[in-house]
């Protein structure tokens, strides 16, 4: 196949912003050498071996389990929400979607900072509690606060793809199922849910990937000591300056994300078209 010249800018773009950085990360992960430079590189697997230390494996484990939890919670919250919105009249539907998207117009950092003032020791919630005579609660700098931040920030990414699949399901399919004797519950389990799986797969992908690699939410709501794999990478690059180890962690994280996506795609029974990355 001959490539048209109109595709050259895009190819150039992809080389500069995708191929080169990925190659560099791979190169750094497989080598040791001077800080920040690419001279005198020596190939080695030491960076990966170093990650096998239990304290790093622990970080990976916590990151994955937190990401899985937040994905599960956004799915449980998001699916009914998407169903409710999709069931409304078109005018009301658009308004609800707009309300859902408006917070996303604000900066991600700002939105997360906002939770600080809500959950903090002297934050809004504790202020109300103490005014009512209760003891203040420890709401921030723990797993739950990070989880909350993830669910809050990533919920729209679960709701929107599921909504867009649900809203496209032909109403006559639902009527056909009812016509054939299916009550509301059976209509859902046999028709609506199976048809919405591509949306669920996309939603899971869109929530799990940023959740597993986030470092902002864990830094702000988990506190300075809180360590997820994203923070580990950030730390290696920005504070420790070990680009080689940082790159190796990034590669490991990428492999994990790819594996997870491959597993979720297996559940996608619809082969044609496909909703996820595979």
């Amino acid at each position, binding site marked *: 196949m001959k490539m048209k010249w109109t595709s050259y800018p895009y190819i150039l773009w992809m080389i500069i912003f995708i191929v080169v950085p990925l190659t560099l990360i791979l190169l750094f992960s497989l080598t040791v050498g001077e800080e920040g430079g690419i001279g005198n590189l020596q190939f080695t697997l030491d960076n990966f071996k170093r990650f096998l230390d239990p304290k790093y494996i622990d970080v990976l484990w916590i990151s994955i389990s937190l990401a899985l939890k937040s994905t599960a919670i956004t799915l449980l919250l998001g699916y009914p929400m998407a169903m409710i919105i999709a069931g409304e009249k078109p005018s009301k539907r658009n308004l609800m979607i707009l309300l859902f998207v408006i917070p996303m117009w604000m900066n991600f950092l700002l939105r997360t900072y906002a939770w600080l003032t809500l959950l903090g020791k002297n934050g809004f919630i504790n202020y109300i509690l103490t005014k009512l005579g209760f003891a203040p609660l420890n709401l921030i700098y723990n797993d739950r606060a990070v989880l909350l931040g993830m669910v809050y920030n990533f919920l729209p990414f679960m709701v929107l793809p599921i909504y867009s699949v649900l809203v496209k399901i032909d109403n006559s399919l639902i009527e056909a199922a009812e*016509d*054939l*004797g299916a009550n509301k519950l059976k209509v859902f389990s046999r028709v609506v849910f199976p048809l919405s799986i591509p949306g669920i797969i996309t939603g899971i992908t869109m929530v799990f990937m940023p959740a597993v690699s986030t470092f902002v939410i864990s830094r702000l709501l988990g506190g300075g000591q809180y360590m997820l794999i994203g923070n580990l990478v950030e730390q290696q690059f920005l504070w420790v300056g070990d680009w080689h180890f940082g790159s190796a962690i990034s590669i490991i994280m990428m492999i994990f994300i790819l594996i997870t996506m491959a597993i979720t795609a297996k559940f996608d029974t619809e082969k044609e078209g496909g909703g996820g990355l595979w």
Partner: protein
Amino acid sequence: MEKTNAIQLKNISKEYDGVKVLDHINLNIRKNEFLTLLGPSGCGKTTTLRIIGGFEQPEEGNIIFEGKDITEVPPYNRQINTVFQKYALFPHMNIFDNIAFGLKIKKMPKDEIKLKVKEMLRLVNLQGFENRSIASLSGGQQQRVAIARALVNEPKVLLLDEPLGALDLKLRKDMQIELKNMQKRVGITFIYVTHDQEEALTMSDTIVVMDGGVIQQVGTPVDIYNEPKNVFVAEFIGESNIIDGIMHDDYLVEFAGKVFDCVDKGFERMEKVDVVIRPEDLEITSVGNGMLTGVVTSVIFKGVHYEMMVKSNDMEWMIHSTIMKPVGTKIGMKVIPDNIHIMKKVMDQ
């Protein structure tokens, strides 16, 4: 009487946003008949069907199914199945699972389901298609799967909502005959919705002509065609010449400035009426031998016949004839009394 009725509609009215789409519909649908709801789009025929299926609730009136009121019964508890306009086959299931859907819901044993689905596939001429996907079927085949999916549940009544609309002409004609044969074989009531008058005439035992949410006429295809009750029915079913006339007496009608013998009676003396003459009932004669004379103004070849417009005094007549008279020819026209149909004038028209 009650026993021979499959479904009775009593005083059914339905509104959408304040617009009345069904206005006090009363209809008896006999067991095992092929009944067609015929009318232009927006006449309320699909709404009537959806009310029978349970997908819409009427604001007024009752639906009686074999003597029992089912107005409030949800669709999944009605012994009625539907073939939808766009087939509405489940895209995530193969042919077998689509047809087996209703039986699985009823928790029928697996072996029995297999047997029934196989039997159905034979009935609709799709043997061996069990594992094919919906997307791999042509429109006609999807249609037949939709029919099999409905019929496998052994409904007492099958509703069909313009099921042949998306098919090409040849396939549509074949499916019309196939559907009619199928209805005779399974021996259940078919309620069929269409806007295609030819389709209605071909398949139905009874045709219900609807317009503006009101039933205009109920009758056999022959009745509807030969004895239309009003101008709407006459114009909707086939082509017709509709002219103003005056009943002079029983069996005597005046139109086009002359008095003709006819076969209708029971009108007031000098009552104004509508006279319907089908284009194929006007015979061409030589000038002087006809009841009317006129000049041919246009000729269109229609395949089996020619369609000619003939100007006679101030009136224009449409004639269907296998004999062609060129434009400008002066001809005579004749019609036998049996083919002059007299209809009461509808006041608001």
